[in-house]
């Protein structure tokens, strides 16, 4: 990290705040803590941050509302934290502009990875690379040339559009509805069988073992994520 990124943590549990501060500071971030929604929103309005870690279960204002309020002016990554049983909340959060999510309990390594990839996607969004390499796969977004182990792979236009979406959001979770809107258009909302079928085809063409995917990962009940790291 060349410049220290400023992270705002909004969580009502003191133990979680302490732990997040320790974790993030030891990873080289500057951390500000807020213990409720009002405190968090005020902080976000008055200071400049590079990312926010937001707990959805806040005592004063619903986390989704906080997210929407901040999203109005802030473009930087917002990562939401939530309990396992509220998949719907997570999907709503992601569709309302959150960049990623973590379910409690989460591993610190996972939190750092999500934060890193969100920051990278955000900071490189202005100058996207046209040639992307994921291990043995190389993708040229300009010429539509895709190679795996040097061998050319042929994709249909829809598959290519889907792949482009994944590559541009590498590391970030994409909800079914987001994918459907971006690739097929707004009329296809709710038709998640399209994403399932086409992700299956991408896996067949690009994964080493389509039954045990390493790149195109399913996020239970939420959507997909393209893994590029490690």
């Amino acid at each position, binding site marked *: 990290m060349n410049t220290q990124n400023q992270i705002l943590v909004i969580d009502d549990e003191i133990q979680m705040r302490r732990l997040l501060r320790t974790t993030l500071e030891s990873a080289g971030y500057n951390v500000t803590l807020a213990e409720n929604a009002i405190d968090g929103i005020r902080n976000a309005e008055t200071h400049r941050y590079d990312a926010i870690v937001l707990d959805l279960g806040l005592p004063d204002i619903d986390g989704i509302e906080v997210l929407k309020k901040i999203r109005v002016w802030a473009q930087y990554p917002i990562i939401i934290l939530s309990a396992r*049983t509220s*998949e719907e909340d997570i999907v709503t959060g992601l569709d309302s502009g959150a960049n990623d999510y973590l379910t409690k309990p989460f591993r610190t390594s996972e939190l750092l990875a999500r934060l890193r990839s969100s920051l990278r996607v955000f900071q490189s969004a202005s100058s996207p690379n046209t040639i992307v390499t994921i291990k043995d796969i190389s993708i040229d977004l300009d010429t539509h040339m895709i190679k795996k182990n040097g061998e050319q792979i042929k994709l249909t236009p829809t598959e290519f559009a889907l792949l482009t979406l994944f590559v541009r959001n590498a590391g970030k979770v994409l909800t079914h509805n987001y994918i459907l809107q971006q690739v097929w258009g707004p009329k296809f909302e709710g038709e998640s069988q399209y994403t399932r079928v086409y992700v299956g085809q991408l896996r067949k063409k690009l994964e080493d073992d389509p*039954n045990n995917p390493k790149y195109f990962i399913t996020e*239970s*009940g939420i959507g997909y994520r393209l893994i590029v790291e490690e």
Partner: protein
Amino acid sequence: MPALKESLGNSISRSASGQYYLAVGTVLCISSILYVFEQHLGYQTVSLFLLLVVASLSLIVRVAPVMVAATVSALIWNFFFIPPHFTFAIGLPQDVLLFFSYFIIAAITGILTTRIRARERHATALYTFTKQLVAAKNLDDVAEAAVRNISLFFNTDIVLYLSTLEGDIVTTPHPSSTMNTNEKEQSIASWAYWNEKKAGKYVDMLPFTETTYYPISGPRYPLGVIGVKIKNDKQFSVNQEILLHNFIAQIASTLEREQLNELTKRTIVYAESEKLYKTLFNSISHELRTPIAAIVSASEGLNEQTQSTARRKEFIDEIHTAAERLNRLVENLLDMTRLESGQLAPKLDWCDVRDVVNASAKKLEKELSDHIVNIEIAENLPLAKLDFGLMEQAITNLLHNASQYTPAGTKIAIKVLQREHELFITIHDTGPGFPAEALKKLFEKFYRVPGTKAGGTGLGLSIAKGFIEAHKGSIAASNHSNGGAMFEIKIPLNE
């Protein structure tokens, strides 16, 4: 024949005056016939015939008409048959004796026979009623039989109030009652109930009503109140009162029987829920305490400065394992609560079953690291409408089970295929399998196979079953013919 006799008896007994006409008419009729044959019979034989008529009448009509028949026949015999004819004077002294004997015998026969008849009628009614009560299967049956029999036999309207198992009177009449009541009537019924005394009409207590209320006494507290409203407004005779009390005594003992049944059932349910609560409490407090103890002692160990790096790593792993165990417990409890609340509505969406199985296997990567997992999924498997989260949890629980109760190196084979309109998932391990007696109880809440290692709540499989059934599917456990445990899941595929 009995039916004919009964219908004849009924039609006659309906009007009181009809009975008198019948009695006097029969006597007159038979007397005229006897008068014709008097020369051949002799007047003493005539008296025997007349006695026969009176005795026969007593089989059909009530006491008063029988008495009239006895008197009329005695007078006729005296006037027309005993010499001198056509006077009430009696010539021979032995005939005076005969005349009075005739009258007394006729009266006694008549009275006794009607009384025996009444008793027989009462006994039959009581017998029929008791038989119905014995056949009653629940409190409602008893109430219905009571109301039906009393209202029919005593020609009354009936209102019946029962008591609750706790000994309070139910303030709304039982639905089988044949009349409506108002608040005033209900308060009289309540009085009769709480004081266990008769109240209402024909009674000193609260007589300003058309109905008489009889408490149904029980061993601990009254079992109810019967309100009786006589339709022809004629107070019961002593015999009828006695019979009604017999009826009520029968009702009381049957109600008591039914209430005891009900109480026993409740006690069993209560005992079961208490057992469940105890099991829950024991297993959960144990399941909570063990990892907490591990966290506490491992973190204390970490605090000691002298520990080597390797030792510190061990402590950290210990804390991690404990935390994961706690998390699994909380998730199981949450899942169980969702199932128990009965509000588990699967959010069905198109899913690739491959994804579901892989997600489960990935979740348990660490637990399954010592096992050889082989996932085999049919190539042309269609997408299925499933709740991803629920199905993933169900399969995770099954795999977790296999990881916990089979030795390291055990093979676990997961197969997914389509069979007609069903999704067919099998999970087969090469472990020791289940003891035969465990197979039936495997999916019961809190059931753990006896002799298995410590740790675990016995909830995992019952949650898996619940989640699969929420998809209208089924799960069965068996021992594979080649050894090892086998789970078969079937889920209907809706095209």
